[in-house]
């Protein structure tokens, strides 16, 4: 306890009283993310700039406590949970656009800027930011970078790593280091993106902006089942039609979002395929015809194209609100994140259905179908121990099934705490040891986000995570 008091005292001395939280009531807000795990940190700090982050790292080293960087806490696998206590560094105050270069199409932002804020701020200049995770109204660009987040549009423009041009980060010694993709030498930018806060603390990002397309079409096709919708997606991908996003929602999800958003999705459909096309007006028209034809050939029951921007936004708002809307159906839900090769999607959704039926719990599916990235949502009541156990087991089975199909266990949320023991299902011990070499080059004393990514055994002593999860409101 006296150690924690000393830590609080030193942090206050360096950052001021206003930036340091140490009471249990205050710390509760920094104890969890969208995974069910929680643990109170010893302190939570709200730095204003990289120099303050540097001071925090030096204090943490002196006091021998770990540091966990926190964006908005929307991650699904415990990446932001301070499972060993220590300091949570919140980026809530580092949320500015530092500079915007419209002709050069780039922006420099602080890591705590909310994803959607960047596109809002650049819209008037005809630019937008590519990666658009469903959490983009709340998740931060620093957090997006940490998990190499994608979202629906990753299908056409790639995940975060394709959009980060430069990074300022604080390393394990407390030094502020800048890296750019134009630097000679190792690509530290691509190395840091997706490293889940285990290599350094990113304070500033240089991001690529995209020019708004001249035409956009958002449309959906209704299918009798998620398998036929998936087969249609495989055909669209194979045909090389330049869609910007290909998303599937099954009946459970469609009904939940319609009750909430009234976007006009058909309630009777077994699954809905949401398609976005963007580019030159004539190309978009031609692609729309081609996709509609493929949909019909794959047994689509209906095809509807949004008439205007308002309808387009409504279709997207409902899709991106899918997880939240499930609150109407079950008290808790567990979202899985796995990827399979695109053509294996029909088999993967069939496997999910079989597994869900086996565990006796209802399941909904939202799928970044163009990328083969599945998000099955299993509904349960965490107060019922049997359901809690069943959901964890089903989650594990889904991951195993996806690996069996040539896929992997995370498409855009990372490994974090919850999936770390699953890592050996995908990689050999030599593969994992190679990752550890990289880790040790950056953070040999394990200051940053310990007990994440790497399976238990590398570090021991913690209790098995229950895994049953609940998303934030």
């Amino acid at each position, binding site marked *: 306890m006296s150690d924690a008091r000393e830590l609080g005292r030193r942090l206050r001395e360096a950052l001021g009283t206003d930036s340091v939280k140490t009471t249990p009531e205050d710390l509760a807000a920094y104890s969890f993310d969208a995974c069910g795990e929680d643990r109170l940190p010893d302190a939570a700090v709200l730095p204003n700039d990289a120099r303050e982050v540097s001071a925090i790292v030096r204090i943490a080293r002196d006091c021998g406590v770990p540091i966990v960087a926190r964006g908005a806490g929307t991650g699904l696998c415990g990446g932001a949970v301070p499972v060993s206590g220590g300091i949570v560094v919140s980026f809530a105050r580092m949320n500015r656009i530092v500079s915007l*270069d419209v*002709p*050069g199409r780039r922006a420099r932002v602080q890591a705590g800027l909310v994803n959607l804020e960047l596109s809002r701020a650049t819209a008037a200049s005809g630019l937008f930011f590519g990666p658009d995770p469903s959490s983009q109204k709340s998740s931060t660009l620093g957090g997006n970078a940490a*998990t190499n987040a*994608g979202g629906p549009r990753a299908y056409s423009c*790639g*995940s975060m*790593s394709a959009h980060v041009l430069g990074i300022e980060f604080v390393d394990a010694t407390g030094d502020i*280091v*800048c*890296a750019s993709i*134009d*630097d*000679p*030498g*190792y*690509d*530290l930018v*691509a*190395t840091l993106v*997706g490293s*889940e806060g285990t290599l350094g603390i990113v304070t500033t990002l240089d991001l690529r902006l995209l*020019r708004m397309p001249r035409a956009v079409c958002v449309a959906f096709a209704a299918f009798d089942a998620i398998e036929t919708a998936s087969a249609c997606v495989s055909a669209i*991908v*194979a045909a*090389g039609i*330049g869609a910007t996003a290909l998303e599937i929602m099954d009946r459970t999800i469609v009904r939940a979002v319609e009750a909430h958003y009234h976007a006009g999705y058909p309630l009777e459909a077994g699954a809905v395929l949401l398609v976005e096309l963007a*580019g*030159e007006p*004539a*190309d978009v028209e031609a692609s729309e015809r081609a996709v509609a034809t493929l949909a019909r050939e794959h047994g689509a029951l209906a095809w509807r194209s949004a008439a205007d921007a308002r309808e387009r936004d409504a279709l997207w708002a409902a899709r991106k609100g899918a997880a939240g809307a499930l609150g109407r159906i079950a008290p808790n839900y567990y979202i899985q994140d796995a*990827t*399979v*090769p*695109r*053509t294996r999607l029909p088999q993967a959704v069939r496997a999910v259905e079989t597994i869900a039926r086996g565990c006796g719990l209802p399941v909904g599916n939202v799928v970044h179908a163009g*990328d*083969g990235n599945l998000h099955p949502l299993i509904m349960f009541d965490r107060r019922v121990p049997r359901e809690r156990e069943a959901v964890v087991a089903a989650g594990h089975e889904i991951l195993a099934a996806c690996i069996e199909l*040539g896929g*992997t266990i*995370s*498409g*855009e949320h*990372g*490994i974090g705490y919850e999936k770390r023991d699953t*890592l050996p299902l*995908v*990689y*050999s011990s*030599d*593969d*994992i*040891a*190679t*990752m550890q*070499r*990289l880790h*040790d*080059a*950056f953070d040999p004393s394990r200051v940053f986000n310990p007990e994440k990514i790497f399976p238990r055994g590398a570090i021991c002593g913690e209790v098995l995570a229950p895994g049953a999860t609940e998303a934030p409101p």
Partner: protein
Amino acid sequence: MTQTSSKKYALGTRAPDFAHVAETIADVSATLRESDAIGRAVVLFGGGTLQGMGSVPVRYDVALDCSRLNRILEHEPADLTIAVEAGCTLANLEQTLAAAGRFLPLDAPRASLATVGGTLASGWLGPRRAAYGRSRDFVIGTTCVLADGTIASAGGMVVKNVTGYDLSKLYVGSLGTLVALVRANLRTLPLPQARRLAIASLPEGTRARTVSHLAALAIEPAAAVIVKGFSKSIDGSDGLDGRVFVLFEGTQRTVDAATRELRSTLGAAGVPETRLLERDIGPAFARLIDAYIEPLGSRSITYRSYGAPANATPRLDAFERVARASDLEAETIEDLRTGDVIARISSRLTPDFAERAVAFDAQRRTALAGARIVSAPERLRARLDGWGAPPASLATMKAVKARFDPHGTLAPGRFVGRI
């Protein structure tokens, strides 16, 4: 594994003591394990086309040629993925993909010799990356051999993957100093329906307007560069301000519309005539890319400088200015979309070239600190600064090297900051 003459693997003024040609991944592993154990330094070879990049290794005992590891392992056109062994040539990759209506814009020189592994290891970046992405953005998985012989994989065959560290992206651009790449899994793209290459000579005083007008095109080109010089290797002929190349790729309709827009845009910039290439675009574009490293006999050095398009012209001007001051000539390629500047510095007079070139290289360190050498006469390389100023993150890079290759087995001293 076969032994071969070591002469063709000479770098700088040094030939290695041993040259091994690997037939299998196990060969690569055995050679590295043995070399690492007894302190021999190893340089990896693919097609050898980009060995002119960077500094000469400070130690060099073994050449390890991976070009025979050249199979296509898995090609899944419907998934838009392909897996190849590192020694697969770019030409073979391109042909295989094209047969299935796919492509990958890696755009490295000498595609019939250049290998996928070498292209990735060198971090090669082509002019179409503004439209399609960087080479590393296409790498979804790798298998590599570490200096101690360990075989390790990262990533997989899926296009979206955050399962552990994305080590593949660290290996891209590591120039054979961290690992030996033996397999690459790549994301591919649907082949565009139509392509067109426009070439126009720039009359005196039209360059600046051409640059600004092309930046404002409504339909963005896949590539746009201004070339000055390279008259024997790249198509077209210079006006007083050089010549411009604009490549469009997409649907026939859009390429047609883009061409109309380009013609009127160039016309407004004072460029009267635009020649259009519909056929043989591939070879013409390949000649442009080849020029990025092509030497002029043994009396040229080629530099490459990265940066924003907005400051490409000042960097290009600096190359010309310093060249003039050293009584050398500069031929240049300015990439309007990516901001790359290529400058081939040469002399008509062979006898004086070495001294002038060394003087040029010393002078450019202030005006063009970030420029790197991509091609230079082997006899001069040890006297030149291959990398320019080291980056601010050099200490972190050295720490990475120390963990992956603690004995300095892989091309020691070749990389930036003598890594």
